[in-house]
């Protein structure tokens, strides 16, 4: 099975102190460390596990710049057969639809039985997977947390329903799935693995390679534009507890007792 995983590089929320920039329209990006969007990493692991059982290969693609190569290499160190960078000045500041347009063009250039995305980007809105499926006219399932390959070009997929129950469905291939974290346990990518793929060439495709009209993507094609970016002010009823961990825990218990949450 030929599998395409669409991945994205995001600031690592566990290793950064996210602060607003002065203009107030983005976060301060100096001193940030980036990594692959966590759900995308699960999608790659799932793809690798499917290929290990059913054969085929895994391609990881990202829309971005040269800096984004690092996540492609990491996923290749993990076991992906190839990484592809979709990069063009015209792609910058794309909205979700723009990203989906680029990915669709790449997906159509090759044949993929299965396209996986992470359930959402940590700094995004969970929109690309669905749009990509619609553009390709493929069936789509979101929030997938289990995949089983069936006979006859079908998959059995599961997802968790609010409240804890699980739903199983059959879906025809080719299709697009958005993958929930927890579907598997992604393998560790060591320093050694990354060194081994450090010198591999990563093919880059621009707008003309993909036959994309530059006006339909990037800032030019974006119909959704970010207006503002801020940390919401604490509202009524919300209180920030200050102090050491112990003090905070103490205060929390007092509050819970006072409000009747604890007897």
């Amino acid at each position, binding site marked *: 099975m030929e599998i395409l995983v669409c991945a994205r590089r995001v600031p690592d929320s566990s*290793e950064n102190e996210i602060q607003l920039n002065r203009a107030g329209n983005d976060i301060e990006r100096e001193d940030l460390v980036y990594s692959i969007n966590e759900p995308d990493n699960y999608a790659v692991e799932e793809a690798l596990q499917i290929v290990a059982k059913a054969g085929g290969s895994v391609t990881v693609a990202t829309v971005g710049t040269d800096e984004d190569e690092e996540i492609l290499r990491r996923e290749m160190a993990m076991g992906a057969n190839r990484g592809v960078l979709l990069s063009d000045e015209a792609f910058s500041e794309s909205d979700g639809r723009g990203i989906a347009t680029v990915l669709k063009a790449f997906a159509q250039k090759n044949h993929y039985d299965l396209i996986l995305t992470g359930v959402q980007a940590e700094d995004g809105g969970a929109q690309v997977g669905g749009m990509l499926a619609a553009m390709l006219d493929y069936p789509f399932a979101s929030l997938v947390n289990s995949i089983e390959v069936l006979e006859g070009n079908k998959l059995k997929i599961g997802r968790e329903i609010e409240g804890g129950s699980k739903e199983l469905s059959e879906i025809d291939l080719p299709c697009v799935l958005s993958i929930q974290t927890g579907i598997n346990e992604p393998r560790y*990518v*060591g320093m050694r693995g990354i*060194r081994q793929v450090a010198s591999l060439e990563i093919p880059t495709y621009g707008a003309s390679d993909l036959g994309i009209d530059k006006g339909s993507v990037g800032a030019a094609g974006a119909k959704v534009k970010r207006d503002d970016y801020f940390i919401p002010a604490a509202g009524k009823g919300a209180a920030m507890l200050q102090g050491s961990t112990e003090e905070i825990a103490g205060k929390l218990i007092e509050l819970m007792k006072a409000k009747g949450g604890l007897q």
Partner: protein
Amino acid sequence: MSEGMLTPAHVVQWLTSVQTLVAIIQVLGFACFVFIVTRRLAPLFRAERDFRLDRPWLRAQTLLKYWFGQWKHPRYRVAGALHLLIFAGFLILATRAFYLLVFGLTDDFATPSTIGRAYDVVADYAATIVFMAVLAAAFRRIIFKPARYAVPEKYGKGHPGDAIFLLALIALLMFSESLFEASRAAVQAQAEMPGEFLAILSLPWILQGSLQIAPITALWKLHLGAYLVDVVTFYFLLCYRPFGIQFHVETSLFNVMFAKLDRGTVKPVRWGVSDSDLDQVKSFGVKKFEDFTWKHILDFYSCADCGRCSDNCPANAVGRPLSPRFLTIKARDYAFDHFPVFGKTNNSHALIGGIYSEDEVWSCTTCGACEEECPLLIEYIDKIVDLRRGMVDDGNVPKSIQKALKALESRGNPYGKMEKKRADWAKDKDLQRACAVKVLDGSSSAQTLYFVDSITSYDDRIQAIGRATARILSEAGENFGILGAGEKDSGHDVRRFGEEMLFQALRDHNVAAIQASGVTRIVTSDPHAYNALKHDYKDVPPVEHISQVLAREVRHGRLNLKPVQDTGNVYAYHDPCYLGRHNQVYDDPREVLDAIPELRRVEMSRCRDRSFCCGGGGLMLFYEPDEQERMGVKRVQMAAEAGANVIVTACPFCMVNIEDAIKVSGMEGKMTAIDLTELVDQHLVPRVPESHERGANALVHANT
């Protein structure tokens, strides 16, 4: 001719037939032994390389001390004493056994030389002592059943009969040998030949006494029969030994001779492959049995299953799924199954998921208690690290540890904190009033580097140890600085968790930063960093742990300490594994404690080289072990049992684990933990005028 009479013809006839039989047994027995040992050695030749022929003089000393001298044995009094007796007896009897076997049986009744007679007396007693020691050992195993020999259900079925069978064979050997001597002496006495002198009260002497009235023909038959039993038992034992724990009789000499000589170190990924060539190595670590080195397989063969390792293993004590004893026994059984003496070799099965579980391998804190105890110097840490290297190479790492490793890669610390905040602990106002800590980032220089490491740099509680250390260094007049954002994690436990390449990246970064700083010595308050800088790093200035610096200052009378603040306290010093067992620093911290006037100090029953690990440092803090109890909780109980209410340690990780354990076990208010540097800091008497000059020195640098 009446019954009981013996003619020379009879003797000659019997001798000839027995001699022929003995010759056949000898040839067959020896051939069998050679065949079996050759088969046993087969996996060693398929195993990885291991360089163990260096430093012959040191190896000879090791052999003398640990093999010939049985150095570790008395750590367990009863079993150790019994083993010493049996071992010494075996050494003495080896000459006679050799003589008997090589020269066979003769009718030479010539009186032996004086030396020969003296030796015979010694050998008679040796056989008697071995016989009795073996009986005592069997008695102990059958009646007292020491707990450490028991096989927990999860590790399979116990074989208590094996040890008894072995002891019985040794007893039979001693008995037959003694009977052989006794019957000959009885013949000589009855025939009024110049008799051999049997050692008074020895087993042969007692036997001879009871044989005195037997007819001479029966005695002759007994003599020959005893000889036959002795020879058969000897060869049976020889060929039976390679099938179990008794193989250590043969392998122990080699195992001790080829033992690891360097404490605190970790074996390279592949012996003979330099760090720069590691990229060419196809697979890291131990994934299948043949990935072990030949010495590690020899370790498996050499294990006597005495259970001392697991008896001291903290992971085993708290119910983690790890027992060093079975780590070895399972591998030995694997070798026996897959490289059988008879039948086809059947190898190359994955060890993880096979004989070992993932949690078993991650459960080890590398505290070294098992290695400290093993009388045969069997290694465990290197094997654990090699197994972890294999798992890391396969991407098989628990998620909680993956996160920490990822953060170490991107930020140089396991918490994912910003590099630029690494020196924030030193910006504390109180600290800056006492001493300004220079950051050696090129703008200033110092003679001494204080290597802080990650936990002391970033952990809110542990930063206090950093500040105490800085104040002490300043008070001791050290011209010191820190690397600040230029320092990365020492990588000590990154290496021990099997992520060798990440460790090397961290190491290379730190080595370059240290060299660029121009310092001439390094001090650290973290034993893990100390061990890394001392053993894992190369081309860096000499390193000391702060307790060593303190002890020297105390010895030279340069540190003024006031009487203990709370005279009601009883202090117990907890030896951190990487300061104590791995680096043999036991006395310095104690000397410092004893230099605080009126301080009352007690020792826990498990102290010094038998110290009980707090739960493990470095990445072990990120591992969620499967255990019934925390190691730290056990340790706090030990301190309470010793009558202490303050645990003093000298390691930031011990502090985290022990303070957590105090809370978890509800001992708050009854027990506290304090770092040696904090305790000294509290009792420092600031130096007056004559120290002014040095203090001023620090201020000048602070302004640069």
